[in-house]
């Protein structure tokens, strides 16, 4: 998009009149230098739990995946974010060998996702977003069946997890709520000795208490060296649990990396209350999206600044008689919203 004012946000002024949505849309994802943090680590493919390269997939005329690049190192919990219809579930089904990629390569635990699906599945466990069980079987029967077909569980894990998730295994599956069906699939997956857990929105039906239990179990599995791919809509969950994050939009992974690195590369939000008029503050100090409101107790200034420029800003604030100062790194929500709001094709 050559006509795009790519660096407009980098040269803001106090009278930047663009509406917020549009402005955010044209924003270069808030990342310094416009460079995406593409590589997680210059990884040896053997160290990757999941490795998708240039994966394309169409259903009829709908081009659902558009060159997906996704690398998840072993031993990390990787969040996988994206709005509905962005291609999350299609990506997961490709790495499970349920769908065949039109082009590109999909490798899971060093095995070809389509060609050696069974070999890969011996070492992974999957919890679908929409768990459908056999209605005539009880929850306990479903758990046993899934565990036996996967080939064994960790000693005592099924009983412990059933207890922890407060699941009644004697009920017929058709009588279970969505959350309880999810618990059945979670117990079966988390009890396994799989090296990789693929979890597609696993907590969407759980209550907050059960979600906390879930997070604890997943963290414990990580200390055992298990890798996790966690697709989720719950940003706070991803923020608390995940080491790395990948954001997919319209069939392309637009952001991928360690969460703290992404934060590091992203502007810091400042929120200041000063006694004096901050007319002296200018864009030269590296401030973006500056807004000033005059209030009874002084002037309320909000804006964003690149982490490296924070140091330069402080002298400017010095003379304004600061009453309150709040500096916060970008939240995952802010990172995510930038991509959500971005215009189609803008990235």
């Amino acid at each position: 998009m050559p006509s795009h004012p790519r660096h407009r946000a980098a040269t803001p002024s106090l009278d930047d009149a663009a509406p917020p949505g549009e402005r955010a849309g044209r924003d270069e994802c808030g990342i310094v230098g416009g460079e995406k943090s593409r590589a997680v680590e210059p990884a040896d493919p053997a160290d990757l739990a999941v490795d998708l390269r240039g994966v394309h997939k169409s259903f009829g005329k709908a081009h659902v995946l558009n060159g997906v690049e996704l690398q998840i190192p072993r031993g990390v919990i990787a969040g996988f974010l994206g709005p509905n219809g962005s291609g999350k579930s299609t990506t997961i089904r490709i790495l499970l060998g349920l769908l065949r990629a039109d082009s590109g390569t999909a490798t899971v635990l060093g095995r070809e996702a389509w060609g050696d699906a069974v070999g890969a599945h011996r070492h992974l466990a999957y919890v679908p977003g929409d768990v459908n069980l056999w209605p005539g079987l009880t929850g306990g029967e479903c758990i046993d069946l899934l565990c036996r077909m996967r080939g064994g569980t960790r000693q005592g894990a099924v009983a412990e997890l059933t207890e922890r998730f407060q699941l009644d295994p004697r009920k017929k599956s058709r009588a279970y709520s969505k959350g309880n069906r999810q618990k059945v699939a979670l117990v079966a997956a988390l009890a396994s000795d799989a090296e990789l857990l693929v979890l597609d929105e696993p907590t969407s039906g759980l209550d907050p208490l059960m979600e906390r239990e879930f997070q604890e179990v997943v963290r414990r599995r990580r200390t055992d060296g298990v890798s996790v791919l966690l697709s989720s809509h719950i940003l706070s969950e991803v923020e608390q649990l995940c080491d790395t994050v990948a954001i997919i939009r319209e069939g392309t992974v637009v952001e991928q990396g360690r969460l703290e690195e992404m934060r590091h590369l992203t502007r810091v939000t400042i929120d200041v209350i000063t006694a004096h008029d901050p007319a002296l503050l200018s864009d030269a100090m590296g401030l973006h999206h500056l807004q000033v409101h005059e209030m009874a107790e002084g002037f309320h200034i909000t804006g964003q600044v690149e982490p490296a420029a924070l140091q330069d800003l402080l002298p400017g604030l010095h003379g304004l008689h600061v009453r309150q100062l709040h500096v916060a790194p970008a939240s995952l929500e802010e990172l995510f919203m930038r991509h959500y709001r971005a215009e189609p094709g803008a990235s």
Partner: protein
Amino acid sequence: MTRELHGTATLLRLALKRDRVRLPVWLVAVGLLLAGGGQELAQVFSSPEERQVRATIMGQPSGIFMGGPGYGLDDYTVGAMMANEYTLFIVVAVAIMALQMAVRHTRGEESAGRIELLRSTRVGRHAAPAATTLMLIITATLIMLVCAGSMLTLDLPVRDSVAYGAGIGLQVLVFGAVGLLCAQLSTTPRGAMGLGLAVLGAAVVVRGIGDIMELHGSSLSWFSPIAWTMQTRAFVELRWWPLLPAAGLSLVLTLVAMALQSRRDLDAGLLPQRSGRAHAAGYLRGPLGLGLRLTRTSNLTWLIALILLAVTYGTLAPSMRDSFGDLPPSYQALMGGSERAVQGYLDLAMTTLACGAAALAVALASRLHGEETETRTEQVLSLPVARIRWLLSWWALALVVSATVLFLSTLVLAATTDAVITVDSVYSDLLLTWATYLPSLALLTSIAVLVYALAPRLTALAWVPVIFVLVVAILGPLLNVPSWLADLSPFHHVARLANDSAADAAALTWVTTAAVLAVALALAAFRRRDVPGR
């Protein structure tokens, strides 16, 4: 009380709207079955002599169990024939319809959570059962009109036709009320339906045994509501009063259901909820064990149905032998029209049983599609389960279960025949015939699996070959199907007792080869295609 009925009219309109397709389909089906079946029966058995032959068969215990108490057997008119032979089938059909209707609009809506939503508005506690009762009354009236109308198309007397229709319509009310009651007892629609079907099954068995004990019904018969409709003696010597207990019972059951409804909580049932097993049985460890477990109930049902059919065929063998010469020519043709009447009759019995087994095989193989649309296939294939294993497991399950069911019913046919009549080497001949049906079962199963593997959404097409085989086997002799078309049906090449158990070995080899090819193609196709989610 009126407060508790608030909203009934609205719910009734809603129920009628939701059933606007289902109800007309039932009405048309019942009408076609009765009028169409009656036309055919009247045509095939057009002379009084031919009908008398049929009356002797219907006087046998099996005839009574599958038919009626035997009114008018000494002067078997078309009307008497219809009342004696069609009532049971129609009553069972409308009873299932009524049970479904009653359960769906009460317990079904309740467990789906919609009643909760409605009851939070100005809708009374009894509104749902009351609306369902009104719905049942409307349906009963329509069924009565359809049945009476169907009888009138056969030029039967008006008064008897109306009584006959009323008798069937009242069964809608009786079993509808049974359904309302069962919906109060069980917490799930499926459980309520199961209870209702058990009541219906008991009513069928009690009527059958009661009538076998004594021609025209013993006192045991009267314990079954189905007997009341038959006891009106429509088209023979009409009496109306047996309809009174039917009306009374529906009223009482409906009131009891209403009373139970006001005593219980929403979503609660009066029967305790049974808990199942906390752990799976040992055999539930792979696709095959899973398939067996999922189809257990339906396999047993098919087995019982085919064994009952085999018993019926077997016990009727002597009367078939004795009356073969007097049967209508088209009926003789159906049995091969041979001199060896009993052998031809047993061939027909085997064909019928094999048609049942073929339908079972295709029904089992078609479950692959349901597993996929319910995304359970996705879950299994994300385990270390190869696609080939999943597909072959269901193929093997369909073939082995249908072959076993056919094997057991063949044994029962041989045993019951052997008990009532002497036929040389009946066991070995029938078992040989059974073996020659196996390639056909394999082919039909393989075609079903192939259609699923190629185009899962078109899995229903797997029924086309079954229907073709069925039509050629059952109606072929009557329709004078050209021989090249009949040769296409795998059932056409099996061993036949009437033909000294000679089978067309070359043709059977071809059928087996085709089955193997189809399943190999299916495996290749299933390995290549996507298994998408919903």
